């Protein structure tokens, strides 16, 4: 009987170890994802987002620069290019002096931003990284909304 109990304990322990191990392994190898399937916290125009950073950068940072806050942004395209890291960048023009530069993860299906040109209206999802010294609000892990 005692032997039986021992066997059960060992089997249960092994099972737990296997589950724990696979959770760790899954977390470790978790793929990088874009914002395509995320429910946006804020739905804004590029004008509105840029305007908030221009009027008070610290307030906008505190409100928008968070991994838990996702956006759906609509704007008018200024330029689209690919940077040295192979990331596509779609830049929205705005009514203020700021622009909104949206980057797409390299090697991921994010809706082909290269199809757009200056003047097109585009809707996309992404996360905000803040505003840089050239007054470009940077968005990351973006995905075109069809």
């Amino acid at each position, binding site marked *: 009987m005692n032997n039986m109990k021992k066997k059960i304990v060992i089997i249960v322990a092994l099972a737990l170890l296997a589950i724990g191990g696979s959770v760790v392994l899954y977390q470790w190898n*978790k793929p990088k994802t874009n914002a395509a399937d995320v429910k946006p916290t804020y739905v804004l125009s590029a004008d509105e987002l840029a305007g908030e950073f221009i009027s008070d950068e610290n307030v906008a940072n505190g409100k928008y620069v968070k991994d838990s806050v996702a956006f759906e942004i609509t704007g008018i395209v200024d330029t689209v290019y690919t940077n040295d*890291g192979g990331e596509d960048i779609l830049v929205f023009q705005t009514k203020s002096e700021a622009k909104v530069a949206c980057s797409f993860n390299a090697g991921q299906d994010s809706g082909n931003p290269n199809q757009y040109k200056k003047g097109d209206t585009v809707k996309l999802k992404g*996360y905000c*990284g803040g505003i840089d010294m050239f007054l470009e609000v940077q968005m990351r892990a973006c995905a075109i909304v069809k």
Partner: protein
Amino acid sequence: MALLLPNALQNKIIHMKNLILLVVLTVSFQANAQKYFSKTAHIKFFSHTSAEDIKADNYKSSIVIDKATGVVQVEGLIKMFEFEKALMQEHFNENYLESDTYPKATFKGKGDFSGVNFAADGNYSVNVAGQLTMHGATKDVSATATIKISGGKIEGSTKFNINPIDYNVKIPDLVKGQISDKIEVTVKATLQPLK
């Protein structure tokens, strides 16, 4: 001689002269541009330990070099650094650099660029020293920057080491063996004259 020419022709000549002057001024102004910049500078963090190599890249960084004053400014948004693994990127942002609270890394320093002729091919080394601010801490850093001008393309780069402890970055004991106390920082940019 101008006096001998009819009025209309004289006016034309004056007009031409102005145009030439304008062209000459514009060209010389461009050749003497004092500021050089990039919006797509590459900042790389690299940590090497016997356990593993970890790399983070930000290809969306900003740099401005003012040749006249020697002032160099570099800025990278922390959340725009990309890691190979999603989990590493999460830890970097949430636990180590706390990017919700400290969204930027900035360097402001000075170097002597007076000997650099940005308008002709050449290679230069310039010592740059200043302050790096990251994760709410500011430290002095200095490094040798290389400027390479070839066929009109201006490439700047530098490399130096930082210690996470200097920037109050706490690394848990559990992963101490995986993250080096000497993080190699590389900055690379193709610079353009700022008009």
